[in-house]
């Protein structure tokens, strides 16, 4: 770590006998509230060596009594945090189930869209229709739907769909958009029975074809 950071004290600041820089040497504190020990080490470095890294260990810090006492200062915190590191981890599955039960009971209907029957009052919630048409778009390889909205056309049951997509760049975009449009139109007619007259598609994001997520870090491709 020490070699990478921009504010690392240069190695030449060590005293000739290697026991540490003379006080006032080039070990400039990197942080405004950092503390310099009597033997010229930064408190932040001492703590980092104690808690964070096994690399580039400063042998002085490991042996000097001042530095070791400074490192000891963190021991109460470290001990108290043991329970947070290793204790009971609350269960995610039960929690996820409870959350989804509540969510499903409160499902957002959004606007109601007419199904294509002029003689009966038959409607479908926009969220339900959007879900089906998004899945139709998702069935096209290299495409994933984002938003799916509906706009009434005229006074009757006709509708226009406006969809945004993430698309992969391994094929020309117009081809992919065309495929998505066909899939959506087909689903609107054959799965739902909606009178969709047009499908407007905008590609808003690039789809990365990634291997499955590794556990742990940065989900969402960040």
């Amino acid at each position, binding site marked *: 770590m020490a070699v990478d950071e921009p504010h690392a004290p240069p190695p030449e600041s060590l005293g000739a006998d290697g026991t540490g820089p003379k006080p006032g040497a080039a070990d400039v504190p990197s942080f405004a509230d950092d503390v310099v020990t009597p033997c010229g080490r930064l408190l*932040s470095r001492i703590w980092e060596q104690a808690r964070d890294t096994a690399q580039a260990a400063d042998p002085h810090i490991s042996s000097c009594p001042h530095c070791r006492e400074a490192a000891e200062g963190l021991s109460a*915190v470290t001990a108290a945090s043991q329970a947070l590191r290793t204790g009971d981890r*609350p269960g*995610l599955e039960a929690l996820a189930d409870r959350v989804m039960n509540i969510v499903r009971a409160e499902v957002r209907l959004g606007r109601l869209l007419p199904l294509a029957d002029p003689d009966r009052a038959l409607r479908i919630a926009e969220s339900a229709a959007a*879900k089906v048409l998004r899945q139709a778009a998702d*069935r096209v390889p290299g495409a994933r739907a984002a938003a799916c909205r509906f706009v009434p056309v005229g006074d009757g049951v006709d509708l226009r769909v406006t969809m945004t997509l*993430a698309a992969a760049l391994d094929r020309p975009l117009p081809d992919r958009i065309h495929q998505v449009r066909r899939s959506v139109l087909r689903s609107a007619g054959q799965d739902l029975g909606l009178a969709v007259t047009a499908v407007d598609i905008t590609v808003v994001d690039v789809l990365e074809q990634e291997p499955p997520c590794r556990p742990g*870090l940065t989900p*969402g491709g960040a």
Partner: protein
Amino acid sequence: MIDTAVALSPGRGLGGRDLPDGLLAVRAAEGDEEAFAVLVQRHGRPLLDLARCMLGNPQDAEEAVQDAFVSAWRRLPEYRHSAEFHTWMHRITVNRCLTMRHRRPPPLSLDTVAEPAATDAWGQPARSAEQEAATAALVRALGELDTGQRLCWILREVQGLSYKQISHVTRSSEQAVRGRLFRARRSLQEAMGPWR
């Protein structure tokens, strides 16, 4: 006529498992609860760790994170994507924990805590009253830290991430991460003074 039906392998993620957070959030905001379920699976674990650090016990942590997710579901239509979804969820969770803390009775002092049983309900060796109180003091102090400092401390000390990983998650430089970590440790060391 082009046949657009495609056979799918089970893990292909038509349920959204491979979609980025932002996309899932858009879908969930329109009522797609399956997209929201993926977000819960992805972010539940780190949020539970965060809540546990702020509240001190797993049961309260579960309650806080459950409330946070339900609140997020209701507020998704207003979420403007100016912050990343996980940052937005983090904020909601922290606020929920702070609200819950204010309603708690204050932690027992050392002389009023009864000595607990030898093992707890899960068969883990029980900790002494003093250890419990020390952890409670740490949790209280964590709650008072600046948000950025607290996050860096939890990611480093509880979740074991490296500086590089932390800088990734928090979208800041490693130098900034180290600075926050240092300040967090200073504040916590001061707060834990009586437990030396």
